[in-house]
């Protein structure tokens, strides 16, 4: 799958409380959650973000609580992919489980500006900054996780598995 979009840049240790504050956790609806995505550090993010946009961030993205509402809010806001220097582990699992593509890449953040257009080839782990022309690579997922992503998330993966067992 190849994704293309404009970037929004965030720093290190973006925690799940700023991705979606607890006061908005009284719903599981992606569209409702998306309205308040990032609101505590970037008040008009929800108004600005366009479908297909890409988030680029620093270290330990998604640290803090286990709320799956965080990747759901990001996905609900139209973001097609998150690229970070590193991800907190629960966020990493959750993103894969709900089918939000994420990539780890250390260098890209230093050499880009907000609004740059990126092209991301998920299967190859290739990232191209179309604005600057530079290319970057990211470690592809282990095969087992690729299966989950290809199935469309963990639940779809399990449904397939159980259907096979019954057949």
């Amino acid at each position: 799958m190849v994704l293309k979009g404009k970037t929004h840049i965030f720093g290190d240790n973006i925690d799940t409380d700023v991705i979606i504050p607890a006061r908005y956790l009284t719903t599981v609806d992606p569209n409702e959650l998306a309205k308040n995505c990032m609101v505590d550090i970037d008040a008009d993010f929800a108004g600005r973000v366009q479908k297909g946009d890409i988030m680029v961030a620093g270290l330990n993205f998604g640290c803090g609580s286990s709320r799956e509402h965080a990747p759901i809010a990001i996905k609900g806001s139209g973001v097609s992919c998150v690229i970070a220097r590193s991800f907190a582990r629960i966020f990493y699992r959750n993103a894969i489980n709900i089918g939000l593509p994420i990539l780890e890449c250390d260098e890209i953040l230093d050499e880009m500006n907000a609004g740059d257009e990126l092209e991301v080839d998920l299967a190859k782990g290739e990232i191209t900054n179309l604005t600057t022309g530079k290319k970057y690579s990211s470690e592809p997922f282990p095969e087992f996780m690729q299966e989950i992503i290809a199935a469309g998330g963990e639940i779809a993966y399990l449904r397939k598995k159980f259907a096979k067992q019954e057949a």
Partner: protein
Amino acid sequence: MGMTMTQKILAHSAGKDCVKAGELITAKLDLVLGNDITSPLAIQEFEKIGLGKVFDKDKIALVPDHFCPNKDIKSAEQANVVRQFARKYDITNYFEVGQMGIEHALIPEKGLVTAGDVVIGADSHTCTYGALGAFSTGIGSTDMAAGMATGELWFKVPDAIKVVLKGKKKNMVSGKDVILHLIGKIGVEGARYMSLEFTGEGALDLSIDERFTIANMAIEAGAKNGIFPVDDVTLEYINAHSKKPYKVFEADEDASYAKVVEIDLSTLDYTVACPHLPSNTKEIANLGDIKVDQVVIGSCTNGRIEDLRVAAKILKGKKVHKNVRCIVFPATQKIYLDAISEGLIQTLVEAGVAVSTPTCGPCLGGHMGILAKGEKCVATTNRNFIGRMGHIESEVYLASPAVAAASAVTGKISAPEEVL
């Protein structure tokens, strides 16, 4: 090569003789946990799998603690989703308001976790049960759904940091100061993807409540889990609370660690994490004058009986400062009752403390003590992120119950010796 304590537990639950860091395994689960925020999403996803049954109705625990007793209509609807699910599938360990407590205090107290268990919870502080020598870790709602359906989950076997605790703590320095000090030292991502394995004579010198506090905040260093060796103190707790068979695992002598961190407990002072990261720590002497508007004593980190005893000891015969609201949350109904029979609640209320029923409440900015713009709070909770306890321009300082209680008296962040 040898295995760490965590690796041994994971190998056992995956039916393997040996596992290595980085290996992907599938482990059998002894308990799957969820709360009123994370479970509704897990339930929605669980129903999509379409199995029509849970893997084991005795091995699922549902604890409505975050926005409960419900703070508004939406949170009441969410709690009701969990309640109806518990009835539909006859879930043994559903804890209604009136029996519940904050999940990570309640689960060990009810004997639902024991040494050697593998536990997942759709709540990041599930790592608390490492205090009992279990492998327990936080996951999201979809993993919870998969766990409830299949009774197993995939894990990447973690590497570990060995934390060697030496010496004896002085004054009223507590487990909270130890973990804040460690997080300050290694950073909020210092243990990312790894286990924190606590060891050394200093670790075994800690009370079980202090071990819970320390394991609880492993996630604040980015860790997958935190774990303590099993000793007499652990077994005494387990035998008093659980009839489940336990299994004691020990790290091999030649286990390999990514890093070894040594802490001499005798050199530690009261430690406070300043806004807006748990790693932003200072010893109290270097803190300066910080006036507070609110003091919160409670949560899954420090709402246990020892914590309430310390708070009551400091507040006995004193008054909460006139510019301060002090709110105390016993973490479970049993702790609440014990605090009543020990006279602690009387002492606290006489001092001018507002005592609440068990709930997560203000810890996550839910209800029962939300901060206004510009307000400062010293809390015994575990996170001081932007907006965590209310307005995005409010500030949370993390500290021990002793420091929090002393601050309630003086109106500024203070060491307990200032009021005792």
